[in-house]
């Protein structure tokens, strides 16, 4: 009677094979797994691009503000415009206070007819208009 061992030995082992030169190639591939370990990047390294982006925004903001401040402050038309806007925004302001605030000196005494006539002449108001106004 055959023993278990004999039965297995009679069958024998099937032999697996591999392509020619496979183990040399395998050793090369597996050997290349070993690479110097890279330490995990710290917080500053990871946040670096975001910090750079934020710095760019701040730089653009500062540059823009500086340029606008210089150009607007030196342009008299802008100044007049902003003052006029201010006047529109505060329609209930007392006119005398407003003009004093922006540096105009208002005459303290009441205007006489002479003052008015002088002003009309100097401003080049046409006589026809004056006549028309007088008839109203």
């Amino acid at each position, binding site marked *: 009677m055959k023993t*278990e061992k004999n*039965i*297995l030995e009679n*069958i*024998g*082992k*099937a*032999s*697996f*094979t*591999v*392509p020619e030169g496979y*183990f040399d190639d*395998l*050793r090369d*591939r*597996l*050997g290349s*797994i*070993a*690479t*110097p370990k890279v330490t995990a990047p710290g917080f500053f390294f990871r946040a670096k691009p975001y910090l750079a982006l934020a710095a760019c925004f701040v730089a653009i903001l500062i540059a823009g503000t500086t340029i606008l401040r210089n150009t607007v402050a030196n342009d008299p038309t802008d100044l007049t415009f902003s003052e006029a806007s201010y006047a529109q925004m505060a329609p209930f302001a007392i006119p005398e206070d407003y003009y004093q605030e922006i540096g105009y000196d208002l005459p303290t005494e009441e205007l006489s007819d002479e003052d008015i006539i002088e002003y009309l002449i100097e401003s080049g108001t046409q006589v026809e208009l004056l006549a028309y106004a007088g008839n109203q």
Partner: protein
Amino acid sequence: MTDNEIMDLYKAGQQERAFKKIVDSYSERLYWHVRHFLCSHEDTDDLLQEIFLKVWNGLPSFRTESRLYTWLYRIATNEALNFLQKKKVRAALQFESLSREMEVLIDDDPWLNGDELQRALLKAVQKLPKKQQLVFTMRWLEDMSYEDISEILGTSVGALKASYHFAVEKLKSELGKNF
């Protein structure tokens, strides 16, 4: 170079050189070990990459109280079992069985030299319960000692011998059906 010398090299700061020595000493042995479980050359080739990647990543935490040989075989065995488990799940999802898939692999494998009876034995091994399959493969196909198998699988020699005995009985019965 012995395992201890390799680990001394590793501890001396020459990690890459030590790893290459491990590859030189164990790549072929672990290939055959895994191949006996997976049968397919392509699957074994893919899995070996993962196994050695785990070895490289695990070397810093390897404790020299256990043998390097045991540690490497344990990683390879676990990875092979995990691979088969995933394959089993995939097969189940396609309403197929793993053993049927393995039979097809054995029949179609161009890198397997074996007669009909030898192929039938390999197919029958695939149908064994996992523990018996492990013990039979390591003992019969790889000629490993019970002591080494015991260290790798963490099972007593007595239990291994019993598993081997049951495996042989089942194989005899399975092969008797066909021949």
